[in-house]
């Protein structure tokens, strides 16, 4: 079967790092990601099924891996070689369409009894990650045993399957997983006013989820590009400003004072960072009010940030990783009601993965939001 495979090749990894720094997304051209003919993954045990991906999205965390910028934190919780792709809509052997909940919990790893978080439904907090009868992997798409969505076949545990209602298109269904992330992040926010930094896929979905979860919340969003501005407003942002305008917008709306250095004396009670760069985290800290919470929703990686404001203003920095199973129900509702399939701007076949990754890495500047692989026409798909 055809699959994009990410192997442990230090020299290529170094080349990807260099290329990715020069031009985001270029790691796909020179790095360890390659299109291969490989054997289909084995079913790891009872309860596992084969899934033929139909569409599989390219996420920010995928780009970080391809460009070699992701944190070494992941080393013990991924297994090489792996096939990326955790945003997946696929079909089962019986033809039914499913979205995948890619997080690999105790149940999927056949660990019994399940750890306390998994037992309580908090699969994203699994305390046995990296153990059990699977190769290490925090999610499908990072685990050698399961394969991933950037291929014509992967495996998933039946508890990872979410049936896709018939009225939902593949394009919309591929956004169920990132929307569930956004729903989870939104559920953590407890404030009447919030800023969302970033209007890529995750930022836009977080805006939609915040508006859905907290209908009366006042929502300020940043967006770099015109199409992002329009979508942010449409999906529920009350005010959309350029990233460089955010501090002033927050100051004006909160009535905060401003020191000579430009620092605000007040700010917002909650800030959601959907970018994860050191600039965005630093900006989040600058606009967070004393006692506020900064929610790190975009994957941050290794960053250098002045944490003095966090200390001096008693700001809490809280991560928002993945979701719980119930978040998928809300995500399906949102994807359906808001017609989020329109956020899929372009799809590529696997063989054009270099172009696909480059497009995803510069999606905003090119007027796009979500880029995905389209596996529906892959020749090998039918023969597996």
């Amino acid at each position, binding site marked *: 079967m055809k699959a994009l495979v990410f192997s442990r090749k230090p020299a290529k990894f170094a080349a990807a790092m260099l290329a990715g720094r020069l031009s985001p997304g270029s790691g796909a051209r020179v790095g360890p990601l390659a299109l291969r003919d490989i054997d289909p993954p084995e079913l790891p045990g009872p309860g596992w099924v084969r899934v033929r991906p139909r569409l599989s999205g390219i996420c920010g965390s995928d780009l970080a891996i391809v460009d070699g910028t992701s944190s070494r934190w992941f080393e013990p919780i991924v297994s090489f070689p792996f096939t990326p792709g955790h945003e997946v809509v696929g079909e089962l052997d019986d033809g039914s369409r499913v979205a995948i909940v890619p997080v690999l919990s105790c149940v999927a790893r056949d660990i019994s009894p399940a750890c306390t978080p998994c037992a309580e439904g908090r699969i994203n907090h699994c305390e046995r990650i990296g153990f059990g009868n699977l190769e290490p992997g925090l999610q499908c798409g990072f685990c050698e045993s399961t394969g991933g969505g950037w291929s014509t076949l992967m495996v998933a545990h039946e508890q990872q399957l979410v049936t896709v209602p018939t009225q939902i298109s593949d394009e919309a269904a591929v956004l169920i997983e990132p929307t569930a992330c956004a729903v989870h992040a939104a559920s953590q926010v407890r404030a009447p006013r919030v800023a969302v930094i970033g209007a890529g896929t995750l930022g836009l979905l977080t805006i939609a989820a915040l508006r859905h979860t907290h209908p009366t919340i006042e929502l300020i969003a940043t967006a770099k590009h015109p199409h992002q501005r329009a979508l942010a407003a449409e999906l529920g942002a009350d*005010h*959309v*400003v*350029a990233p460089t*305008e955010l501090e*002033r*917008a927050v*100051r*004006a*709306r909160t*009535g*905060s*004072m*401003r020191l000579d250095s430009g620092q605000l004396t007040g700010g917002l009670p909650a800030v959601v960072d959907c970018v994860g760069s050191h600039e965005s985290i630093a900006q989040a800290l600058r606009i967070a009010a004393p006692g506020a919470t900064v929610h790190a929703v975009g994957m941050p990686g290794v960053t250098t940030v002045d944490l003095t404001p966090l200390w001096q203003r008693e700001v809490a920095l809280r991560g928002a990783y993945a979701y719980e199973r119930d978040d998928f129900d809300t995500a399906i509702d949102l994807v359906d009601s808001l017609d989020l399939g329109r956020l899929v701007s372009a799809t590529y076949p696997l063989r054009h993965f270099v172009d696909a990754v480059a497009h995803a890495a510069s999606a905003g500047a090119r007027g796009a939001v979500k880029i995905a692989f389209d596996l529906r026409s892959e020749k090998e798909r039918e023969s597996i």
Partner: protein
Amino acid sequence: MPRPGFVLEVDRSTPPILFHHGESLRLEKLPAGRSRVLYPGEPLAALEDVDGEIRQALDNPLGDSQPLRALLKPGMKLTIAFDDISLPLPPMRRPDVRQRVIEAVLDLAAAAGVDDVHLIAALALHRRMTEAELRHAVGDRVYDAFAPQGHLYNHDAEDVDNLAFLGTTRHGEEVEINKRAADSDLIVYVNINLVSMDGGWKSTATGLSSYRSLRHHHNVKTMQQSRSFMDRHASELHSSNWRMGEVLRDAGVKVFQIETTLNNDTFGTSGPMSVLQKREWEWTARDRATFVGMKAGLDRMPIGVRRKIFNSWKAPYGVTSVQAGEVEAVHEVTTANVFKQQLVAVEGQTDILTMGLPYICPYNVNSVMNPILVMCLGLGYFFNMYRGKPLVREGGVLIMSHPTPWEFNPVHHPSYIDFFEHVLADTTDPLEIEARYEKQYAEDEWYRHLYRTSYAYHGVHPFYMWYWGCHGLSHMGKVIIVGGDPRSVRRLGFTPASTLNDALEMASDVVGRDASITHLHNPPIVMADVT
């Protein structure tokens, strides 16, 4: 004998016409056969003995007023209020006429034994004047005598302990002015009436007031009903100020008004700038060479240097009249004198009005002409330079020439930045802006702080700039800015054009291909009397 202003019909022999363009200049060929140019009058003769005329005016007041010396008594409380940095434009060469008038008033006060004297820059919600600016306006002698004791200062419209509420007009408008002025036995107001909008009761009722008062006439409705605000008798802005004047009078506030008028000698009769004051077909070879050299030099300079050069220009205006006494009587004469210099009869409206906006307007002296001020100068001040009917017909096109940079002076215009980035990003509709945003900006503590302690215009000031242009905005079918930063121009809600020809082409979509064009050749200042 100075030649009056007039209307030139453009034909094939008409040379390219001067357009001011911020800190630069352009020469534009206007289409022959359908264009005309409205030229300002040449500078009227200046008074030869300004100090003598001032003394004469103080001793021979107009209207129901005693001579100033008769109003000055020992032990009395005297407040001299004077126009702020927004007048005149550009600033005048020393000695500023305010200094001359104030010195004359102080001489009389001293002779009468008045020793409780305060001098207040009547800046309303404008930025505070710096020491250098105050020294320029009142002179070093006056500044050194009063400022160190704290008796010469800027009005503070947010100092609630030093504001006095004096009542409401019959229209329910609240009147609140500077407490020291209100409590004085006499206010002497020293004005420079650069344009016909200035002066009269507006001096005190606006210059010394607070947001509480100002909001009653600095609003969209009032500005829509001021047609134009340069014509006192057709201006709701002035009617409101006059009603407030009645309240002041009824509350016992005594005002002795001194108004002065200046001639059109903005750029002088010698030196490189003088070419800007000449009619193009009368340019000599030397004038042309001067202009070409000046333009080439300016265009090669960094903007900061250009700005410094223009901001350092002090106009050699001549004083053409001094009137003193009772407010309304004084103002009638003053306005007539302003019109004598500026008013030009124009027959019929035009389809397209063009104007070159200079580097300065009332709110960016020693500062940056930001995009909001571009809108205010073009659609507010220049558009309203009419009596009778607007120069351009309703549904016509306004073409302004200005670089319109996305640039702000963060010290002078902090709330402008937010207004531009946030308010205009949402809407450019004056009524919506007023309803949704004005209160928030007016009451913002940070803007208040900067207005009171730094050199910032009040938080609400950019709203007033937008309202100033609202009549023009609703009147025009399209507004085009030539040579402006396209991002800024679009944020203002206007259309950018690279050249005047492009702009005229765009305008033809609205007013047709044979549309008539009128160019307002301003500055020096010209006002159209349109019939």
